């Protein structure tokens, strides 16, 4: 099968997945207990005001009518207007997406760059002191509660040591190069928090898959052929052991990009998309939630496609099977 056909098939399957996600989201939101009119206006409002609000947002119409109208909007690239903010859903999501993207991308880069070598070290020294130490750190990291880590880091590095700012994505009244420095300094602690809680998973996955790989026949053969140990480890065994880690990266992107960093963004007052989703839930802002889940579905589809392609590059057997 050609790569183009493979991508086309995947695209078709992706569109179906997105339609399914959109439909389920649409129905689930309307099954939620609660009245959007109550979330939008004062609970003391009159029945007339409530009826006017529901009519204004088309919530007084039957579900099939609402659904058809919603799909019609989507086809035209219109995600609707936020109930609570009165701005387009695209604007509401896109103004927050870059901040989450920055946070997720930078923490993933650091986690992978630190996690893979630590996992390799632990696997290479399996059973030794370094292995035990790395495992201890990894397991501890996995059991950390994100908000507690955030407050602790803010207290130590923000309040006590004064090394980093407390909350926000950048400082007020800074422009040009200073603004970029401000963005970096504000991102350090939330990024570090994400790294601390994610790192363990990468280290332990890398370690276990690499230990398995090191026991494979082709590794034994390479060693028998006199290939140096370091080359066997990094060139032969690591390449195969990277497959589960690649899956993990894909999963983490899907998990964190839309919604997964709610707690981090809340503690650090970071203006990302996770916080936007949380606020939309509180306000029963259906259009924003529908837009966010559509984005999530699209991200999952795209990331899965990329992961499949990377799999093919890493493992020729996958490519041959395709």
């Amino acid at each position: 099968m050609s790569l183009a056909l493979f991508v086309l098939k995947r695209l078709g399957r992706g569109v179906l997945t997105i339609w399914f996600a959109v439909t389920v989201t649409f129905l689930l939101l309307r099954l939620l207990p609660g009245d959007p009119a109550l979330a939008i206006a004062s609970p003391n409002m009159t029945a007339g005001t409530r009826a006017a609000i529901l009519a204004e947002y088309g919530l007084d119409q039957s579900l099939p009518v609402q659904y058809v109208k919603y799909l019609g909007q989507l086809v035209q690239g219109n995600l609707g207007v936020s109930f609570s903010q009165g701005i387009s859903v695209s604007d509401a999501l896109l103004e927050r997406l870059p901040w989450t993207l920055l946070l997720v991308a930078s923490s993933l880069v650091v986690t992978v760059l630190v996690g893979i070598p630590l996992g390799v070290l632990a696997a290479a020294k399996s059973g030794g002191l370094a292995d035990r130490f790395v495992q201890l750190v990894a397991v501890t990291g996995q059991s950390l509660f994100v908000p507690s880590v955030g407050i602790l880091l803010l207290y130590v590095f923000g309040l006590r040591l004064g090394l980093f700012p407390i909350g926000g994505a950048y400082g007020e009244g800074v422009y040009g190069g200073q603004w970029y420095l401000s963005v970096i300094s504000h991102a350090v602690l939330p990024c570090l928090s994400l790294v601390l809680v994610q790192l363990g998973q990468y280290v332990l996955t890398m370690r276990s898959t690499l230990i398995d790989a090191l026991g494979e026949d082709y590794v034994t053969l390479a060693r028998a052929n006199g290939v140096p140990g370091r080359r066997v480890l990094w060139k032969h065994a690591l390449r195969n052991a990277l497959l589960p880690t690649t899956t993990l990266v894909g999963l983490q992107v899907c998990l964190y990009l839309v919604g997964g960093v709610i707690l981090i963004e809340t503690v650090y007052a970071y203006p990302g998309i996770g916080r936007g989703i949380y606020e939309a839930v509180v306000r029963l802002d259906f259009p924003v939630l529908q837009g966010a889940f559509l984005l999530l579905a699209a991200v999952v589809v795209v990331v899965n496609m990329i992961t499949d392609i990377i799999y093919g590059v890493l493992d020729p057997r996958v490519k041959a099977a395709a």
Partner: protein
Amino acid sequence: MFRPRTALAGAAAVAVLFTAACAPSGPPAGESAVSDATLTIATTTDVVNYNPLIGNSRSDYWITNLMYPHLLSIQPDGSKGPELAEKWGYVNDTTGFYEIKPGLTWSDGQPLTAKDVAYTLNAVKKDKPAGTLYGQLANFDSATAVSDTRVEVKLSHPDASLIPEVGFWGNVVPQHVFEPAGSVAKFANDGSKGGWVSAGPYVLTSVQRGQSYTMKRVDNYPLVPGGKGKAAEVVYRVYPDVNTEILALKNGDVDVIANSLPPAQVKQLQSTPDIKVAEVPGLGYSHMTYNMTKPDLAKKDVRLALAHAVDYDAIRRVVLQGQAVSTGSSQLMPVLSAYYDKSVTEYEYNPDLSRQLLTQAGYKPDGNGNFPLSFRLIYSLQDPVTTQWATIVKDGAAKAGVTIQLQGIERNTYLAMTDKGDFDIYAGNFAIMDDPATNMSLAYLPGGAINYSYVDDPALNALIDKARVTFQQPDQIPIMRDAAKLVRDNVYDNIMYTQNLYVAYRSAWSGFAVKPSELLSIVNPVSVASATKAG
């Protein structure tokens, strides 16, 4: 070959470039730097709506309040006081008036006159925006500017509360900005068409959603000495987590926390260097209402038994750490000093008395001393204080032999269940009770928006109706006291306490003017405009 490091570094670079789209541009060349200090205020939520006739969140209120003045404000003793209006009252039973200060202007130079006031009230009546003001206009007919400073209000029915309530709850908006935009119920007022116009001490100039709202001083605000605010800029910064908010205050990143502090944080901040804590009288109360459509709760003795099974003192002492006061189980709280009635006392905590009352009502306990009574109490899980005291209520009822099932729920579900009467006992808060007659009509008249007990007592209805058409406060006070006593004696509502609020600020700042309620507290327009920084 795939190189993960290269790919990931590329992803990070894309993210940085993408983020660069958010980079703000510098101030225009030649714009002078401000000479005075910036007052930075922390809040927990973003602004949802910039139209003060629609918005109803705390941040909406605080920020739009600095631009769109109210006709009246509230005094420390709970009475109404002047803000934009110098005089107000009634010409006769169906005609009221406001006299506003002369010589006021909007920040774009347009005069602020009685026409703006009349336009605001008429537009709200016509367009029915979802905010609080529209709810106050039930008996409003029309408003007319009879001069540049006087507005006369025609009422459809006599209503002694309308003029003070509309004056307190309604912001005045600029007619020349809002009228061309069409319906005031739909106008976002998001500054997209040339920014904002203000008649308050500050005007919004920059919004970084999710992060901050910057407001610059307006040079004509006659409500404070000197005619303008002391701080050159006010910046509201958003910290969704209260712990981060407090760290930012300690660190000096913010100067004031606008939200009231959680009870557990008050004592710690009171002893923190460079931080001051101000006490703000609460204008609301916490209460439980018993759904009288349920056969057992329709009996007065059962409601009274439940009221006597609550350890109110423990709730105030333990959960609220002494930061709440008893109202004597009455809506007429001590802060409303003119109405407060010392002779009305709180329900005594006495589970034995509860048992007697239930026996008297014909209920028989089983071998374990439990009566065949079980009630479902709902509360919002977003309200940490109520969540804590609900357990004390349950334990107290158990001592009286009554089972209470606690049902803590997510806020939107809680609101919907409350609205449908899907509860036996409702636990919650009434945020601001500034006018007893209005509050009682909402809470105890049949069909009232918050009549959660579904009470319909002709004697109480008559008292409330009479109070609403009694225009002189000295005449209204005894009527309200009789009504409150009727509510208390029949347990139509169980008012548990009024919570005093505490707000924190950096001690380098002074001059704040505290007003009751979290809405006004130390972030009311006059207070913010009066705040000065030492040095």
